[in-house]
């Protein structure tokens, strides 16, 4: 039963899509078979894998950057009221900064480079990670922190064994919403200033009004991101949380 419902759900969506395509008709909204054909065409030429691969690398680089910097800023802000009061207003500013502004400015200031592209994407995600991690850091168990102080754990050990494990649920939440946000912004960055990647390709297809091609790339990439979520993020989270699920004293 648990396997059946998602399948039914997807079939329902496909049927709805096909019905809409038959009503609208033509090139504006191609049905699933036409899009599947476009997908096959792009896969056979190798273009699909090339552009998806490039985009995926950018997503991963921006993700890693945003998560590590976000934790690096959010954790001290959550632990220190002084830092929080000092930099809180900055956070509000960056949270409200439109993604497009960051991207355009990054390209203007640093040129149409890979670093500018990835950096711009990361900057869009960092404030959100900081907010989540800061909230998690405020809820840290002071008893364990005191224990670490008495037993003179090194700063690195405190981070790794005392602080970060308590932040795991927060970091996992930030990672999930981060992945979803980042891949969308990466496409915009590619559209504006890169000559490869899914975003670039969608721009080309847009110019020829190739809706089938656009949908083909979209579906392929959503599928890959979902695969990352279920194949990497969720198992990683389960591994970090395994101590919670251990049965009580046998």
């Amino acid at each position: 039963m648990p396997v059946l419902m998602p399948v039914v759900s997807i079939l329902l969506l496909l049927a709805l899509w096909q019905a809409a395509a038959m009503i609208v008709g033509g090139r504006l909204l191609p049905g699933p078979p036409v899009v599947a054909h476009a997908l096959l065409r792009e896969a056979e030429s190798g273009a699909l894998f090339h552009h998806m691969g490039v985009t995926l690398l950018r997503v991963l680089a921006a993700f890693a950057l945003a998560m590590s910097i976000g934790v690096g800023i959010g954790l001290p802000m959550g632990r220190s009221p002084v830092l929080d009061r000092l930099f809180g207003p900055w956070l509000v500013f960056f949270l409200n900064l439109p993604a497009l502004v960051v991207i355009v400015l990054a390209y203007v200031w640093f040129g149409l480079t890979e670093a500018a592209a990835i950096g711009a994407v990361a900057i869009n995600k960092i404030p959100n990670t900081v907010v989540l991690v800061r909230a998690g850091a405020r809820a840290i168990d002071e008893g364990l922190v005191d224990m670490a102080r008495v037993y003179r754990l090194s700063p690195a050990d405190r981070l790794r064994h005392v602080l970060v494990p308590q932040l795991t649920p927060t970091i996992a939440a930030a990672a999930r919403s981060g992945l979803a946000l980042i891949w969308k912004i990466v496409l915009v960055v590619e559209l504006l200033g890169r000559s490869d990647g899914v975003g670039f390709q969608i721009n080309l297809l847009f110019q020829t009004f190739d809706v089938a091609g656009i949908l083909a790339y979209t579906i392929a990439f959503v599928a890959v991101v979902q695969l990352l979520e279920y194949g990497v993020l969720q198992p990683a989270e389960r591994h970090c949380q395994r101590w919670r699920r251990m049965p009580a004293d046998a």
Partner: protein
Amino acid sequence: MRGLTLSAPAGEVVALVGPSGCGKTTALGIVAGLDRAFDGVVEVGPRPDGGPARIGYVFQEPRLLPWRTVRQNLALVLPRAQRRGPAVDAMLEALELSPFADRFPTQLSLGMARRVALARAFVVEPDLLLMDEPFVSLDEPTALRLRGLLSNLLDRRPTTVLLVTHNLREALALADRLLLLAPSPGRVVAEVPVAVPRAARDDATIEALRRDLLSRPEPAFRLLA
């Protein structure tokens, strides 16, 4: 708390006994360096090798890292070079925890978790061991057994201990000297040395010592009742 003076020579077990609210836990926090909002001086050591004194602290709750196994919880408080050495396993063995070495604390009963916390405090070979109601909210047989294990450890490796408890029997079973505290402001109102060697204190001796204290006429001892 006001005017609290306390000194203990190496190897002495001192019990701070008193009702709740007389600053027992605060005193431990100050000695441990966790609480810095006080006027006064705390000196621990010096060690024979001149290094900073090592402190073991058994908190009122076990305060184990729930995401690390029992063995990892012990290893983590050691310097990196000693973590893989025999000290951890020897300590687990001494407290009969070896079968639980790879369990997570969430899988342990409270008594067992307290035993791990005790092992963690001893594995650092502390110059000063601070204990805050280490056997509270355990059933009597478990508490008794844990007290016995602690007593053995102290016999094997004499350690300076500051034990906070509201349980007079526990204090009389373990300590060389009792300090009776009174609340608001927290202060020492009486000092009671325990002359009987720890190994010779059986239930009857402890009970006799307790009755003797409770029957004393000074007001300080009335707080014990």
